[in-house]
């Protein structure tokens, strides 16, 4: 597959309530692109969270972002101290960005 750029792909899951806080961190670090999905359910160290539980609205937000390795390192450095409080998870993997759309990474 030619005409691609190698980037890091981060996948972060946190409480939906913390969404704005995470966005602020991403902005501070200078991330230029991310995608998020709300109303995610899940299981983790703090038990299950179900978007369809009418009595407890506990949902997660999932963030996916592609960025350069340097940027990813900066982000992880900024994020790590908060992760304990945020809970959830933060995964990193490799990916190829297909050149074409505006380079928002």
């Amino acid at each position: 597959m030619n005409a691609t750029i190698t980037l890091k792909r981060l996948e972060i899951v946190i409480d939906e309530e913390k969404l704005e806080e995470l966005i602020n961190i991403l902005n501070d670090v200078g991330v230029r692109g991310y995608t998020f999905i709300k109303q995610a359910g899940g299981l983790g160290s703090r038990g299950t969270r179900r978007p369809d539980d009418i009595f407890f609205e506990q949902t997660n937000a999932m963030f996916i972002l592609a960025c350069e390795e340097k940027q990813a390192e900066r982000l992880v450095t900024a994020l790590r101290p908060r992760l304990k409080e945020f809970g959830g998870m933060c995964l990193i993997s490799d990916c190829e960005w297909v050149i074409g759309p505006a380079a928002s990474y």
Partner: protein
Amino acid sequence: MATIQPVVIFFILGVLAGVLKSDLKIPEALYKSLSIFLLIAIGFKGGVSMAKYEITEVLPIALSMVVLAALVPLTAYPILKKLGKFSQADSGAIAAHYGSVSAVTFAVGIAFLDGIKETSEGYMVLIMALMEIPALVTGTVLARRGAGGETQWGKLMHEILTGTSIFLMVGGVIVGYYAGIVKLVSPLDKMFMDLFMGVLALFLLEMGLLASARLSAIRAKGPFLLGFGILFPLTAGFFGAFLGAIFQLSLGGTMMLAVLYASCSYIAAPAAMRIAVPEADPAVSIGASLGVTFPFNIFIGVPIYFEMAKFFKAMF
């Protein structure tokens, strides 16, 4: 005894839909919209009829009834702890649920009174809103006495006071009171009074669906919670009817005070307890209050509380 209100049959339909595994689903947005409507409507109706009283006159009575409501969780707690063998956290949390009130049970009580052409004091709705505070605070104190970790009192009080339930009911009271004073109740009542029963019908349908899904959660402690969920509200209702008669409330008002003391929360209390007593298991308290006490109250309790009110009114 009085006839069962048609509206409560919708609760049975909901339970049935759950049991028969019907594909009936109430959209979440509808459920939330109906509850917003009901809370405003309950407040509005109360506010309109409050406009007929002198507020300063009723305030002391109302406040004493609110303060006395703290007795409910204080009584429930040792029963749950000793007889029910629940942990301290669970006992406190369940006690808070039973000290707190259910706006929908209140609404069914109002509907019952409407059906027999009785009324109650408008400020009962304010009592309902205020009763949350002593109930949830007492429950939290009981649950966390001597426990490690600090209680998030600030967050808890914010949750109680600005939570959707209290906020919308008090908001409805304000608008209803003002509309009553300036004599502009008219076009708003077409929505918030005339449609009250129909909206309650749809809401009870969903309550039935939810209750049928929740009953399984109490299986382990089933027999105890079944007994507790019926006998405790009867006792609390008895106490409420007694108080109402002492405080010289009207017949309808006496019954509604019994309903308030007897009913228990499954919306506001779970949200508050999650913050204040996170180690308690919400499934148990919701299962008991929504699966046992709520249906008991709307079908059997409400007419009984009416008889209790008649009994005590005749006495004092």
